[in-house]
Structure formats: C-alpha cells, structure tokens
C-alpha cells in the first residue's frame, strides 16, 4: 500500500507532467489542470506536515523532513504567486523541483538523531530550509527570465504572445522580491548555524574539512552582492538572473555536500 508520502509524490508527479506538457506545446488547459493538481498536492502535504506538528514533532527535525518542508514551501509559494501572475511556464520548473526534493527526501536516510540539536540547531535548520525554498523560487523565476529573454532576442514573438507568459519585468521583480525576502532569513540561518557549530565545538580547525561552510558563506555573498547591485547600481535583467542562479547553485552545493557527508 502506498504511504501518504508516496501519494504526495504521485500527485506532484502528475502536476509536473501537466506543466511540462503545457511548456512543450499542449493547450492551456494542461497548465490549469496542473495547477489544480498541484493545489491538491500542497493540500495533502500541508495535512501531512500539520499532522506531524500536532503530534509535537518538529517538521524539520531530520534532513528528509526538512527537504520535504522545503518542497512544501516551494509548492505553496509558487501556487500563491501563480494566482496573481501568469506563471504557467514557471510551473514546469517549480513542480519538478518539488518532486525531485520529495523523491530525494525518500532516499536520504534520516540521521540517527543528532544528539545536541537544541533550540539553536532547530532554528538554524528551519531558517535554512525556508531560505533555500525562497531562493529556489527566485532561481525558477530567473531561469524563466533567461528563457524568455532568449526567445525575445530570437524573435520568437508569436510563441510568447500565444502562451501569455508573465512579462520579463514581472519575472525580474518577483525574483528580486524573493531574494530580498530570503536574504535576511538566510543570514540569520548562517549566523545561528555558525553559533550552533561553535557550541558543538566543531567550528575551529575544521573549516578545511567542511567545505560547505565556505560554500554557504559564498552563497550568502553572492546574494548580498546581488541585492546591493540591484538597489545601488540598478542591476536587473540578465545579469541579475545569472547571479541569482549562481547563488542558488551555491546553496544547492551546500546541501549536496551536507547530504553526502550524512549519507557517508
């Protein structure tokens, strides 16, 4: 019998397929249906997380759970935005990202109860999770921006109008908003993380052993530069999109290294 998580994965898979189908040229109905299915997935997911909260279980107490939570935030964030903006094409990236995270979460083993989690650790993981989710949304928007920019450059005008995609400016603005929302969260996550590790006595002398610390700082710097450049130098468009992707890539690398270490 399928577990609750497997059902969620199935639902997200269907939503992904519908959104991808829309991107590949099916009718608009495909995207609308995709959103409906995605909403169902978010609902199930929410019920799942809610149930665990009721049982006094922190939704981000283990790595797989944290990943599931990221997936939920991405799905819910995208869903909310898609009601206001024409983001059907972004669904083809957001929904599979959610799906991939959930599937990964199934594969990654739960670490055998980190002993000294403490409030600090929990705060760190929770904030980092939210930060990564918001950055993922920003990255999805950036990818979309780059695709649309390319299509406009190549004068594939008909396709764009027919599809009724969100405008370049909307994508740019939304991505900027995601970054400026996620950055402070990520900052606090970074600080609490450092404090946590320091408390565990793992910080000094182990940096070389743990490249993810450096990566995390690099990611933070990338997004920081992006924010400053946007506000100060009026950066936008393609360069901002690439920088967003760079920062997101860094964040993903941090996660990958982290998981590899825990899986080992």
């Amino acid at each position: 019998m399928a577990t609750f998580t497997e059902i969620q994965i199935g639902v997200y898979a269907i939503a992904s397929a519908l959104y991808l189908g829309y991107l590949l040229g099916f009718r608009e109905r495909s995207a609308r249906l995709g959103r409906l299915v995605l909403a169902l997935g978010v609902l199930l997911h929410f019920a799942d997380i809610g149930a665990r909260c009721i049982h006094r279980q922190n939704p981000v107490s283990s790595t797989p759970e944290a990943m599931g939570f990221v997936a939920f935030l991405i799905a819910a964030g995208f869903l909310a935005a898609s009601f206001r903006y024409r983001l059907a094409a972004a669904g083809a990236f957001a929904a599979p990202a959610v799906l991939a995270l959930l599937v990964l979460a199934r594969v990654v083993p739960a670490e055998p109860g980190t002993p000294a989690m403490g409030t600090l650790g929990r705060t760190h993981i929770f904030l980092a999770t939210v930060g990564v989710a918001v950055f993922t949304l920003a990255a999805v928007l950036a990818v979309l921006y780059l695709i649309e920019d390319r299509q406009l450059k190549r004068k594939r005008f008909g396709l764009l109008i027919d599809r009724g995609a969100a405008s370049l400016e909307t994508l740019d603005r939304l991505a900027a908003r995601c970054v400026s929302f996620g950055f402070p969260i990520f900052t606090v996550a970074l600080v609490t993380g450092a404090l946590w590790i320091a408390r565990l006595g793992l910080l000094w002398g182990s940096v070389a052993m743990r490249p993810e610390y450096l990566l995390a700082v690099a990611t933070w710097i990338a997004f920081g530069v992006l924010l400053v450049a946007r506000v100060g130098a009026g950066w936008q468009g393609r360069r901002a999109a690439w920088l967003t992707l760079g920062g997101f890539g860094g964040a993903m690398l941090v996660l990958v290294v982290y998981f590899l270490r825990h899986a080992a």
Partner: protein
Amino acid sequence: MESLTDVIVLGVSHRTAPVAVREKLTVAEEQVEAALRQVVALPGIREAALLCTCNRVEVYAVASDREAALRALGSDLAVRASVAAAELEPHLYVRSDSEAVHHLFRVASSLDSLVVGEPQILGQVKTTHDLALKSGTAGPILNLCFSRAFRVARRVRRETAIARNPVSVSSVAIDLARQVFGGFDGRRVLIVGAGKMSDLAARALQGQGATLTVTNRTPGRAQELAVRMGGDVHAWEDLVGALATADIVLASTGAREPVLTRALVARAQKLRRGRPLFLIDIAVPRDVEPSCAELPGIYLADIDDLQKVASSHRDGRRGEAEQAESIVEQELGRFIESFRGRQVGPTVVALRARVITLAKTEAEKLVNGMPHLAERDRRAILNFAESIANKLLHGPQMALKKDTSGDGVPLVTAVQRLFDLTVVEAVEDPAADAGNEGEPAAGQKKASG
C-alpha cells in the same frame, strides 16, 4: 401566434455594401430610439432593434406579416438614406426564421466581423438591445433572441481562442511591449520620426497610459505631433539622451540609412545600465540597425516580425472560427428546441380553450332550441359535447408534447396556424442573464467601430 418564424433581419454589412452605402444608412446613437419607434409603427411589425456599427446597419424585427414588413422596412431604409429603393436593393440581405437568429448569434460572436474575433461587436449588440428596451420596441421574442446571443458570444469567446491573439501590426507591437514590461503605466515611449505611421502608432499607444516623447529631424513636425498626442519633444541632436530615458522606442522615419545605429544604441544602453529597451521599427527602409538586437537588454522587432505574428494569428483565428461556428450551430439548435418547448404549454391551453368553448357553445345553442328536454337530458347533451371535444384533443395534445421533429415546421407552429391560435403568454427566458458583458481584454482594442 408567436414563433421564431416571425423573426426577420434586414440590413447591409461590409460584405454586401461599400462604405458609401453604409454611411448613408447609419443612424446616430441618439437617434436610434426615434428611428425604432418609427419602425414599429410600420405595418406588420411588433418588435424591432437596430444594430448600427461602421461595418453594418441591421434591423432585427418580429413581424406578424413577413412580406408586408419586409417591404415596409426596405422602403423605410431607403427613405432614411434618401436613396432610391431600387438602388439599395442589391446591397440588402434578408434572413428570417431561425436563419435570422443564426445571423444574430454569428454577429454577436464576431464571426461576421471584418476582423473575425474583434471584441467590440458584442458591446455594440448589447447597446442595440439596450436601446430597443429603452424605446420599448423590444418585446419577448427579441429579448429572448438577444439574451441568448450574448450567452452564445460569451461561450464562443470562452471556449475558443478566436479573440485571444492580436491580428494587427500595432496591437502585436503593443502586446510585445507588454511582454517585456508588463504594462504601459509610467512607461516612456519615444517616437522617432513624425510621419503618418508615427501618427497612427502613437494613437494606438495613447490610451495605454504611457508618456509620449517625440523626436524628429524637423522640430516643427515633432512639436505638432507632440501637441496632438499630449506628449513632449526631445531634441533630434540628442538621440542618445532620448534613448537613455525611454522604455519603448517607436521608429518610423523616412531616412534611407538606419537612424539608430548599433553604436548609438550601445552608448544609450550604457547610460541605461542594462535596463531593458524595446525597439519597434516600423519604417521601410529600416531605422534600426538589426545588430542592435545583439546588445544585452535590447529587444528589437521590425515590421516583418510584427507582420509575421499578425498573419499567423489571423490563420489561427480562421481555425478557431470553424470551432466557433459549430458552437453557434449547436446553440441555435438548443435555442430553437427550448423556444418550441416553451411554446407547447400555452399552445395546448389555447387549443383546448378554442375547441372546448366551441363545443360548449354549439351544444348550448342546441339544447336551448329544445325546451321540451328534461334537465337531466340537457346536462347529458352538454357533457356529451364536451367529452367529444376532450377525446378529440387528446391525440393532438400528446403529439404536441412529444414533438421532437428536428426539421420542417414544428407541430406547435403548425397547430397555431391551423387553429389560428394567439398564444398570449409571455415567452420569458429563464436562463436569460442580466449584467454587463465582459469588457474586451486590454490591448485587444482594435478599430472597428
């Protein structure tokens, strides 16, 4: 009797008459009510509505005597346009019965428009109905037809993409600009060149909420256009500066060489710090050097690009139109069916009243002439007459209720004609929906008038 067979439409459109004829027939909106009152005063006409756009003038009417009504309407139109009836005749088309309703459905759904799918017509048909209601010339049948026409048009628009994509060069350009910027509010549009094309394009942009700036080699012409469009003028010598502050540039000068060279645009883009700039080049020969499109943040569309999109959309609309036609057909079938159904009840009542009253009066006459009969016998005779009438009515009544014949004259109509019945009950459409029509999507406003 009241049935769809009484609905007629008579008029001219872009398909049958040149503008020289159409303009003579045009009735200004404030004169429509008076004209309608005149029309219903014509012999044989009970209800009327007048649809008047720059592409068509049509009178929809419900007539008790079709031939007389058509003749009267034709000469009325001729008089109004002050042309000879014979001159008008070849341009006129006439439809009646379900064909008239079909025509109304097609018109409202924009299938009969010059630009198929243009959004204004539905509003115009709505106005037509409103004016007819206001002047009291719209009765139950026209109300029914019009409110159903609105529903059909909405369904066509919802279920087909007939009105979705723009088909004119200027609206494609506007849509593309919207693809980059999301909207025109607070956008700065720079118009390079002050010729006829600039004028047209500027007019298309005017209602969109952008600020217009004009620059032209001859400052006088720039000034002229700027005043007309409510914009301001920028010095031709400072094109780079003008580009630096603009979001959308519309170029249509008569210059032989590109005015906006790559070097110039690159310099402006440096000042803009990469903010996106959309260049629309509608000049031939072109005003913008094509390689400008390679610069980051610069998007370029020339007249060919725009025309390509527009014509592909026109093709798309043709495909969608077929689907729309079948929706209209289907809705017409349903409409006729429900109209007939709505008639059955009142017709049965009228038929019964007619036959039973007749039997009763005749029987009464008979017994009144025979005073020697006992009271019991008199009642027996009266009952006998009524029961014959009832028995006779049973068959036709059942047949009327069961009638689903698709083609030919429906039984309801046949019975009404055979017995010369007047069905007085108002035929109301329970599904008729009030409320305003959806406004045409922004950016799809095309001149159609």
